[in-house]
């Protein structure tokens, strides 16, 4: 009997000696070189740009860490962005208004651009048929989401609801046809592009892949407002930033109470887990720490209809009411919930679910008070 307990005791000791990564720590199992990239990438992520180092002329933030900061680098932010698009039924396609500065409108300008044009933000195109508020999510565990294969995402898709469960997840695609997964409308296929694009679109810092400041609502930048030559950031810094985000460990869930364990069971029973799939597995990946890993992200990375009340803009295949299932890992660190920050509490967020998720919402409402509290306790353990 005593002998039988020895392996258990050793396992418990090993777990105690090897606690899960803290929030903002790198993944376990990285090589020394990868950890070095992570640490150097964090410095770029936290660097504050100024007009003299490439910021603007249009921008939303002066650092990656301005929007992804709470409680540590890579966390959430309190910034709310403005996105726009136009649905053109006569074509019919969703137009992201790329030639008018869309879909992300920059809310801030450098002093030089303000002096030249007298504006405080990029003007919203008159053609926009929809506007959307977008909160800043945390980016913990995004490297693992990036390493989930397209085949895994497609395996969960059921666009025509053939199984009749009322849930019909479907993929969104980037403009070149690749399957998307990042962003609230699942537009962006890879983490590398998600990170690289943010330099130009959020900070106005040009990079080798985007050596152009773009336009001001479709009009050329006035001369003299952007003195630095393009690109303003070297590929090396872009790569380091990508390494930092890619290697950020997912938030470790809290130890579940009895109520939270019951809530986890109810979460599945009332159908939340149909879209918020608890676990995805990554495919083969050159980085060992990202290869063949389970990620408890609570998402299927697919688009679902969330109902007319939360609808805002279209984006490629996503209709105004379709959104990618938000990953719930790290939910307890999030201050504002849902894509537009409309909910301040978990209960509010559940109540604001509509469309395909209306059935689960109503089943949640039908639970007893203690059962509802158990579901909330579970979600707050993530």
């Amino acid at each position: 009997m005593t002998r039988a307990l020895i392996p258990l005791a050793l396992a418990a000791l090993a777990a105690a000696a090897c606690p899960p990564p803290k929030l903002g720590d790198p993944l376990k199992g990285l090589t020394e070189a990868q950890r070095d990239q992570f640490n150097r990438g964090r410095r770029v992520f936290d660097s504050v740009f100024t007009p003299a180092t490439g910021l603007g002329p249009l921008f939303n933030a002066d650092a990656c860490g301005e929007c992804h900061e709470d409680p540590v680098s890579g966390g959430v932010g309190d910034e709310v962005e403005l996105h726009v698009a136009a649905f053109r039924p006569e074509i019919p396609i969703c137009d992201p208004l790329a030639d008018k500065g869309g879909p992300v409108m920059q809310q801030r300008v450098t002093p030089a651009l303000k002096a030249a044009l007298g504006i405080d933000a990029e003007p919203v195109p008159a053609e926009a048929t929809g506007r959307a508020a977008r909160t800043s999510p945390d980016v913990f565990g995004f490297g693992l989401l990036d390493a989930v294969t397209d085949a895994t995402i497609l395996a969960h898709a059921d666009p025509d609801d053939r199984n009749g469960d009322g849930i019909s997840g479907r993929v969104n695609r980037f403009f070149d046809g690749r399957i998307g997964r990042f962003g609230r409308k699942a537009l962006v296929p890879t983490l590398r592009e998600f990170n690289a694009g943010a330099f130009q679109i959020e900070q106005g810092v040009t990079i080798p892949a985007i050596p152009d400041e773009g336009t001001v609502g479709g009009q050329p930048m006035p001369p003299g407002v952007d003195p630095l030559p393009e690109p303003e950031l070297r590929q090396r810094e872009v790569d380091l930033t990508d390494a930092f985000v890619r290697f950020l460990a997912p938030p470790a869930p809290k130890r579940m109470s009895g109520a939270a364990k019951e809530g986890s069971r109810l979460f599945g029973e009332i159908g939340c887990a149909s879209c918020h799939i608890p676990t995805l597995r990554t495919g083969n990946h050159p980085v060992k720490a990202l290869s063949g890993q389970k990620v408890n992200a609570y998402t299927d990375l697919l688009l679902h209809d969330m109902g007319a009340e939360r609808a805002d803009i279209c984006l490629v295949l996503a209709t105004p009411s379709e959104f990618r299932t938000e990953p719930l890992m790290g939910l307890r660190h999030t201050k504002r919930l849902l894509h537009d920050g409309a909910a301040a509490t978990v209960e509010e967020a559940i109540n604001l679910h509509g469309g395909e998720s209306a059935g689960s919402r109503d089943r949640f409402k039908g639970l007893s008070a203690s059962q509802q509290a158990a579901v909330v306790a579970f979600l707050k353990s993530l």
Partner: protein
Amino acid sequence: MNRTIRLLSLLLLGLVAPTILAAQAPDTVQGMVRRVDAPAGTFDVITGVSTALWLVPLRAGTAAYISADGSSLALADLRPGDIVRVQYRATPQGNVCDKVERVGRMDNGPGDAR
């Protein structure tokens, strides 16, 4: 004298030729057709990196080869929402297409060029 001129000409050609070739090297873009104006022989394609998006305005003259699944198409056969791979050259008249291949429809993804 003739030999000197010949040598100088060769040297000059060696210096200039790479520049000429670089100017003629085609660009390639894969993106979604947003608009087609068949009578004007123009169309544009949306592409980008993440949400940093831009339009590539293109001109498809009579020399442009437009195809889908190996079959020849007319520019008027392209529709908004088609996914195309375009080989083009920047010229003073704009971006002139050499080849336009429809590789899919946005709702079906690449591989369905019907």
